[in-house]
Structures are given as structure tokens and as C-alpha cells.
């Protein structure tokens, strides 16, 4: 009898492993205000009909990583992937609460916001170390891509051998230069998009289906 139970357990374990394969978790990383949450919301809206997080012009609006599970994205040739999307707090090496004062928040609120932001960055680094299987690295294409934090983050992601797609966001703005991003990171696919207007997001979805499988 015990052998029967053992065998049955083994079979069911095997089936579980087979059918509940660990979901691929895709982290959206990048500096503050690049448009990470705007993209997370667009992906969630396009493929599940729901929103994910709060978008804001104030940096560090996202101070906790948030995850949306079981998003199935289909490509043009009929293939698809089912992933979890993790929207992360923007990574930086410095945070000064004074910078929030410019947006009309009180000093006390700014201090709390700064503390939460520092925790958020540490949390984002943790997710990257433990729980992320692929990365969409989000850049504002009106900004200098050579910022040290981008160089470091891409290096950290590469050292973990994670597949990465670079999204060159905000191409709706006249100052946008996705080409500058391409020349900064020639080793990774770069997709120019506007998350705000939805321009080229299909290209990003197509790339995700092919790159994150």
C-alpha cells in the first residue's frame, strides 16, 4: 500500500510540475519617470482589461513592486506567452526628499515619500536577484541613455543572464531619440514606443512573445 501511495504521489507531483510550470515573471525596470507604470497599465488593459498602478509626473510614485499574474500576450503568427508583469519602483543611487517639495507636497509627506522610495529601490533590486525571469528596461528617449544607473542596471541584468528588451519610450515627444538608445545598448533589442499614445506597442508585444519564451 505504501508503495502505491508513494507512486501516486510521485505521479501527481510530476503532473503538477508539468501543468503548473512556474510562470515567467517579467520585470519592468528603469529610472524614475520613464513610463514603467504607464506601460504596465497598457499591457494589463490590452490583455486583461484591468489597470495596474498609479501613473504620476512626480518621480517615485511607484514605491512598491506590484505584480499582475497570468497575462497572455499573443503574437501575429499565433504564438503566445503567459507571463506575470512586475511593475517596479524606479532605480536610482540618490533620493532627496526636497525634490518632492517642488510638486507641492508638505515636508512631512515628502520625507515619508522619500523613505518609501528608498525601500522601493531596495525591493526592486531584490526582485531582480530572486524572482525575475526577463526584463523590459524602460528608458525615456528624450533623456541621456548613458546615465550611470542605466549602465549599471543593464550590467547587473546581463550578469544574471536574463533576456532583456529595451523600450525607448516617449517617442511622441519631439526631443525623442531612440537612435541614441540603440547606440548605447547595441547588444539588446530596442523598441521605440509611446506608452501614452500606444504607438508601436504591437511591436513590443511581438518582441516579447519571441524574446521571453
Amino acid at each position, binding site marked *: 500500500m505504501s508503495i502505491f501511495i508513494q507512486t501516486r504521489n510521485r505521479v501527481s507531483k510530476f503532473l503538477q510540475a508539468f501543468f503548473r510550470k512556474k510562470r515567467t515573471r517579467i520585470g519592468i525596470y528603469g529610472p524614475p519617470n520613464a513610463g514603467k507604470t504607464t506601460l504596465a497599465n497598457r499591457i494589463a488593459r490590452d490583455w486583461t482589461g484591468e489597470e495596474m498602478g498609479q501613473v504620476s509626473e512626480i518621480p517615485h510614485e511607484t514605491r512598491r513592486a506590484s505584480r499582475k499574474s497570468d497575462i497572455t500576450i499573443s503574437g501575429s503568427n499565433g504564438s503566445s506567452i503567459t507571463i506575470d508583469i512586475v511593475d517596479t519602483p524606479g532605480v536610482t543611487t540618490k*533620493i532627496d526628499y526636497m525634490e518632492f517639495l517642488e510638486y507641492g507636497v508638505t515636508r512631512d509627506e515628502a520625507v515619508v515619500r522619500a523613505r518609501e522610495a528608498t525601500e522601493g529601490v531596495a525591493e526592486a533590486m531584490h526582485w531582480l536577484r530572486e524572482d525575475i525571469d526577463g526584463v523590459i528596461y524602460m528608458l525615456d528617449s528624450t533623456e541621456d541613455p548613458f546615465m550611470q544607473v542605466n549602465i549599471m542596471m543593464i550590467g547587473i541584468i546581463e550578469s544574471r543572464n536574463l533576456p532583456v528588451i529595451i523600450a525607448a519610450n516617449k517617442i511622441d515627444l519631439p526631443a525623442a531619440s531612440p537612435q541614441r538608445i540603440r547606440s548605447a545598448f*547595441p547588444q539588446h533589442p530596442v523598441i521605440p514606443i509611446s506608452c501614452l499614445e500606444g504607438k508601436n506597442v504591437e511591436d513590443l508585444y511581438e518582441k516579447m512573445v519571441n524574446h521571453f519564451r
Partner: protein
Amino acid sequence: MIEGIQIDLISEERLATMTSMEKIRMILDDVRRGTIVILEKGLAPEEQSTLIEMTMREILPDGFNGIEIETYPSRADSPGFLKRLLGKSAPESRLTVIGPANQLRMIKKDKDVISAWISTR
């Protein structure tokens, strides 16, 4: 008493004798004291990741507000498709400058030049 800023240049030999945690602790202790740290050899990606995390943990209102860090080579020295072919990770970074964010501004960076502007407190 002369007003000034301390700059520590840490040799590659010295860095080689230190563990990751010793390096990061030294950098943060120095930088929080207002010292500019120059490493002859850059940190590994793993160490950079830990440095970011520990920097965040030590930020305080009206106190330490983080670090400024710059390293070369980077610009115009990307590994490109060769890296993809060989599956090698990015070349190790060489000289690295780290300082307190409220005093150090990196104003120009090139393939082989880092220009930094330091303010007295």
C-alpha cells in the same frame, strides 16, 4: 585649519585583498564622511547591486542622500554583437569615481574621461 575635500584612491591591489562587503562598507563609510572614493578597478555587477541597495538603506532626511557614481569605459565601448556571439558579459569596468550625491556632480563623461565637479559643504 584648511577647508577641503578628501579624495581616496584605492589601488587595484588593495581592492583585490578585500571582500565584497568590505569594499562596499568602505565606500559608504568614506562617502558618508564626504570623501570622494576612486577605485582603480570597478565593482562587479553583484557588488554594484548590493551597493545600490545599501545606499538606499542609509539615506536619511537632511543627512546622507545617496551617491553619485561614474565609471569608464562605457560610452562607445559597448561589446555589441561580439559579446552576443561569444556569450561573454560586458567588459569589467575600470576606474570608478564615487562620492556623496549632494557634493559631487559628474559633468562630462567620455570613453576615457570622467570630469567631476565637487562642492565644499
